[in-house]
C-alpha cells in the first residue's frame, strides 16, 4: 500500500495523475463528499415527515426532487464510486500488478463522474431514482429530467469503463504465480461485480435512450398515449438494477473479507466457499428482477419463477455469513473501529436478507408493495450492510492513505450512534409499512401510530447525522494532526499484512 497524503503534493499532481492510488484517492474524496450531500437531503426529508402537514419543505414537488436526488446521489455517486476507490487502491496490489490495466481509461472513468453529478444536482429532477414512466415521459419537468437522464448515461459509461478495467487487470495482468484460486476474496468480489455490470448496464443504457427519445416526442416506447408500455420500462430498469444491488453489496462483502480475518487474527475459514458464493450471487442476481413487479399483473407462474429465483440468492448470502462467523470462531478478535463496522454490517445484512426473503414471498409482497416496508428493506441493505462495510473499510484504509491514525474512540462512537440510528430508522420503517404508510409521500394523515413511528425514525436519522458529523470531524482533524501510523502494523494486530512490500515502496519516492 502507498502513502498519499503523508508527503504533501500539489493538488494538480493528483488530479492529472493516472496512477491507481491517485485515481482511488479522487474517487474516495468525491464519493465521501456526495455521501454528506445526499445525507443532508435525507435529514431534510426526515424532518419534514416528523409531523403531518408541511414543515420545512415548501411543497410536494420540492420534496419529490429532494428524495430523487438523495437516492440518485447515494447510490450512483457515493456507494459505487466508494467501491471504485477501494478497488483502485487494492486490486492492482492484490493481483501484484503495477497499476490498473488501462490507467488513462481509469482516470477518464473517474473524471466522467463529477460532470454527471453536476447534471443530477443542477437539474434536481423529481421522478424518483428510477424515473418511472409514464410520468417521466409525459409530465416530468424539463430540463431537470433530461439532465438526470444524461447524468445517469454518463455514470453508466463510467461504470462500464471501470468494470472493463477491473476485469482485465484481474484476469490478464495478475502475477503469473498467483492463481485465481489463491487470489484474495476482495479481488474476487470486484471481478464478480464487474462482470455483473458488463452484462446488466447496457439494458438500462438502452432504456434511458428510449426514455429520452420518448420525452423528445420521437418515439413512444413507454408512452401509453401512443400505444407504448410503461411496464416494459420497469422490466428493462429492474433487469439492470436488481443485479446492480449485488454490484453494490458484493464489494462491501469483499471489504469485510479483508477486515474480519485480519482483526480475528486467523485466515478466512473457507476461501473456496467465498469464491463460490460470489459466483453464485453474480449468476442468480439476474434471476430475480421481476420480484419488484409482482403487483403489475404477472401470472402466478411468472411470479413463482421469480420468487424461486430470488430465494436462490439465500444460500450464497448465507455462505458468506457463515464464512464470517466461522472465521471469527476461535479467533482473538480486536474490536477496533473497522471490525465493529464489519460485525455490525453482518448483523444488519442478515436482518436485511431475512426481510428480503419475506418480501420475495408473493403473498406478503402484495401487502408491503409501495409501503414504507420497502424503504426500510432497501435502506437496511444499502445503509446497514453496504455503507457499514464501506465505512469500516474507510477507517481501515485511513492510515494507509494518510500515514496517520484516526481517533479510535470517536470512530467507535460513530459506529454506536450509526448502529442504533440504523435500527431505529430502518426497523421502524418496516413496521410503519405494515401499518400501511405508503412510501414517497410528502404528507400523511395524523394517525397516532404513524406519527409516533415517523418521529422515532426521524430521531434515528438525527443519530445517524450526528455520527456522520463526528466521522467527518475525526477524519479532517486526524488527516493533519492524527498520531503517525505504524505502517508495518497500524492496528497493532501482529503478524504480517498481506502486502507488506508495498508499504515500503511508495511510488512517489
Amino acid at each position: 500500500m502507498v502513502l498519499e497524503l503523508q508527503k504533501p503534493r500539489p493538488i494538480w499532481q493528483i488530479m492529472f495523475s493516472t496512477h491507481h492510488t491517485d485515481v482511488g484517492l479522487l474517487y474516495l474524496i468525491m464519493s465521501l463528499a456526495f455521501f454528506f450531500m445526499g445525507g443532508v437531503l435525507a435529514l431534510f426529508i426526515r424532518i419534514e415527515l416528523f409531523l403531518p402537514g408541511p414543515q420545512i419543505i415548501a411543497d410536494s414537488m420540492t420534496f419529490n426532487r429532494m428524495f430523487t436526488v438523495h437516492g440518485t446521489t447515494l447510490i450512483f455517486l457515493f456507494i459505487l464510486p466508494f467501491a471504485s476507490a477501494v478497488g483502485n487502491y487494492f486490486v492492482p496490489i492484490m493481483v501484484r500488478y503495477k497499476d490498473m490495466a488501462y490507467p488513462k481509461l481509469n482516470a477518464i472513468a473517474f473524471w466522467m463522474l463529477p460532470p454527471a453529478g453536476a447534471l443530477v444536482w443542477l437539474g434536481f429532477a423529481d421522478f424518483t431514482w428510477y424515473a418511472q414512466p409514464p410520468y417521466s415521459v409525459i409530465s416530468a419537468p424539463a430540463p431537470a429530467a433530461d439532465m438526470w437522464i444524461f447524468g445517469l448515461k454518463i455514470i453508466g459509461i463510467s461504470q462500464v469503463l471501470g468494470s472493463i478495467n477491473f476485469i482485465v487487470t484481474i484476469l490478464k495482468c495478475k502475477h503469473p504465480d498467483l492463481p485465481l484460486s489463491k487470489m484474495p476474496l476482495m479481488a474476487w468480489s470486484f471481478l464478480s461485480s464487474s462482470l455483473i455490470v458488463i452484462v446488466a448496464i447496457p439494458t438500462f443504457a438502452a432504456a434511458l435512450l428510449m426514455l429520452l427519445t420518448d420525452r423528445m416526442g420521437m418515439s413512444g416506447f413507454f408512452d401509453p398515449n401512443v400505444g407504448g408500455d410503461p411496464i416494459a420500462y420497469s422490466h428493462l430498469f429492474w433487469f439492470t438494477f436488481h443485479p446492480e444491488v449485488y454490484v453494490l453489496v458484493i464489494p462491501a462483502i469483499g471489504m469485510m473479507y479483508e477486515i474480519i480475518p485480519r482483526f480475528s487474527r486467523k485466515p478466512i475459514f473457507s476461501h473456496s466457499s467465498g469464491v463460490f458464493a460470489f459466483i453464485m450471487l453474480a449468476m442468480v442476481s439476474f434471476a430475480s428482477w421481476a420480484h419488484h413487479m409482482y403487483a403489475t399483473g404477472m401470472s402466478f407462474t411468472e411470479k413463482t419463477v421469480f420468487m424461486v429465483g430470488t430465494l436462490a440468492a439465500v444460500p450464497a448470502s448465507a455462505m458468506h455469513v457463515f464464512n464470517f462467523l466461522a472465521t471469527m470462531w476461535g479467533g482473538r478478535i480486536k474490536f477496533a473501529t473497522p471490525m465493529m463496522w464489519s460485525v455490525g454490517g453482518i448483523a444488519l445484512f442478515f436482518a436485511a436478507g431475512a426481510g428480503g426473503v419475506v418480501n420475495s414471498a408473493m403473498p406478503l409482497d402484495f401487502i408491503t408493495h409501495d409501503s414504507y416496508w420497502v424503504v426500510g428493506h432497501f435502506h437496511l441493505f444499502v445503509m446497514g450492510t453496504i455503507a457499514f462495510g464501506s465505512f469500516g473499510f474507510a477507517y481501515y484504509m485511513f492510515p494507509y492513505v494518510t500515514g496517520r491514525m484516526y481517533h479510535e474512540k470517536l470512530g467507535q462512537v460513530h459506529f454506536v450512534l450509526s448502529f442504533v440510528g440504523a435500527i431505529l430508522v430502518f426497523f421502524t420503517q418496516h413496521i410503519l409499512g405494515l401499518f400501511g404508510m405508503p412510501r414517497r409521500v410528502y404528507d400523511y394523515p395524523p394517525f397516532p401510530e404513524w406519527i409516533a413511528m415517523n418521529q422515532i425514525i426521524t430521531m434515528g436519522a438525527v443519530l445517524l447525522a450526528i455520527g456522520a458529523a463526528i466521522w467527518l470531524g475525526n477524519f479532517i482533524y486526524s488527516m493533519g494532526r492524527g498520531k503517525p501510523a505504524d505502517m508495518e502494523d497500524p492496528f497493532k494486530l501482529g503478524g504480517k499484512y498481506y502486502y507488506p512490500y508495498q508499504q515500503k515502496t511508495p511510488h512517489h519516492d
Partner: protein
Amino acid sequence: MRSKIGLLVVFTIIFIIPTLNYAFAAGDEPGEYLDRRVVIWNLFFRMMVVAFTIGAVVSGTMVWLVWRFRESNPNAKPTKYEETGEW
C-alpha cells in the same frame, strides 16, 4: 461429511417439491378444488417459522462469538496463526 450434506439435500428436495406441487396443482379455471392462496400462505408461514428459527440461532451465535472471542475475554488465547504471523 459429504454423505451428510447429500442426505440434507435429499431431505430438502423431498420437502420442497411436494409443497410446490400443491401450489401448482390447480389449473387456471374457476371452481378449482385447491385454493392456491391458502397453500401459498401456508408455505409462507412455514418459511417464516424456519426463517425466525435460523435467525435466532445465527444472531445468538454472533452475539456469543463477539463476547467469547474478543481479545479482552479472560479466556482469550493467541491463535495458532499468531505464532507464525501468517494469516
